[in-house]
């Protein structure tokens, strides 16, 4: 870990800089929106990464409920934390783009709203983990993660129906994308995935160390209480 991590960090940094160069200088300028559109190369990869991490959190939570393996719980908490970071980037870059293009910071569009609700649910999950005391934290956190995942399709459908009831002018995805733009987008996504993997790895190591420390402290206090 100690030796490989800096090397990987430098490589990821170089990849991210290259992806940024592609996004700012190589990708063609969008016809109607102009340079503002380039935030898209940060916004969309962050969203995909966040959704991927939340999916990992769900799978890890289910596996934890079945197997009760502490390493799986470490994966669950790590993916939720890193996922919330990327989801926050999505929610910040979205309005930055929307303001000049749509003329508004925020609209209750389906994608915006679902992402916001997703963010709220996983922040609640992290707060629960922080407030929970003792050994039951992984179990109750895993049940809450399962509830959050079950909620995702319902959130989607409710907001979709809600939107059709109250239509608002919103530019949807639609249309085709320039192959050069797609290339830059994918390169940025790969760079973001490398960054996410790096963050995931270091956070996961920290979590495992924390678990070992808690275990050692628990053992120590037991030994101190036992008769000499």
């Amino acid at each position, binding site marked *: 870990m100690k030796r490989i991590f800096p090397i990987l960090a430098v490589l990821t940094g170089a990849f991210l800089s290259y992806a940024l160069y592609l996004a700012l200088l190589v990708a063609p300028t969008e016809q109607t929106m102009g340079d503002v559109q380039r935030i898209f190369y940060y916004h969309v990869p962050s969203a995909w990464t966040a959704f991927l991490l939340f999916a990992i959190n769900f799978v890890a939570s289910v596996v934890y409920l079945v197997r009760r393996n502490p390493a799986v719980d470490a994966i669950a908490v790590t993916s939720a934390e890193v996922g919330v970071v990327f989801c926050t980037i999505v929610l910040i870059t979205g309005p930055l783009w929307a303001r000049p293009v749509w003329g508004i910071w925020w609209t209750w569009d389906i994608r915006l709203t679902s992402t916001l609700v997703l963010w*709220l649910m996983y922040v609640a999950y992290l707060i*629960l983990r922080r*407030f929970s005391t*003792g050994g039951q934290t992984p179990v*109750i956190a895993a049940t*809450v993660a*399962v*509830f959050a995942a*079950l909620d995702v399709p*319902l959130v989607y459908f409710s907001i979709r129906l809600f939107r059709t009831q109250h239509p608002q002018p919103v530019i949807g995805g639609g249309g085709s994308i320039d192959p050069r733009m797609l290339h830059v987008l994918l390169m940025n996504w790969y760079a973001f995935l490398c960054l996410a993997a790096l963050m995931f790895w270091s956070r996961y190591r920290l979590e495992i160390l924390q678990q070992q420390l808690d275990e050692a402290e628990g053992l120590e206090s037991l030994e101190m209480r036992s008769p000499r």
Partner: protein
Amino acid sequence: MSVLRLTTATLAKDFRLEWRSKDALNSMLFFALLVVVIFSFSFDPNAEESRRIAGGLIWVAFLFSSVVALNQTWAREVRNQVLDAYRISPAPSNALFLAKVIGNFLFVALIELLTTPLFIAFYKLRAVGPAWQLFPVAALGTWALVVNGTFFAAVSIRTRSREIMLPLLLFPISIPAIIAMVSATTAILTAEYSARFWVVLLLTYDVIFTVACLLLFETVLNAE
């Protein structure tokens, strides 16, 4: 003992305790009254406007006051180590959960029945659509809040600052249910669109989360 007998026994015990103390009921009722009065000061709508916003206001008031009841669900059992006794006993834990959900449902429904006339009076409400449909919507919506609320109350008693943890968990998960119940109520009050989709969505939500709660409650009860 069968699940049904255990459920009714727990329910009867809770009702007897509540009947003697009236703690939850009084605090909930007063809280709901305060919310209604404060909302009336915050908005001063005409009849047409109030019909459009009443669905939202009424459900926010019920949501807040149900949290007051839900927070008290397990507090008594924790104080007297009843939960520990329940863990050792061979009784199925879902009987306990169902009793708590049904008890909370009846409490919240009673509060709704008592508060709704006030809402109607303060906001000069009159439904344009078929008003009887408000009853199934209210029943499904209350169940949606109460089933997850009871479950998350059992989760949050395991944390520090348990009182604040419950709404933090319950509100984000309840967002689709809240959208559905508010939209269904507004649909019935204004008769501008059909409430059918929303009732179906609410029913789906209730079924999914009731099953999830029953499957996972034992895990939460025994989590150590």
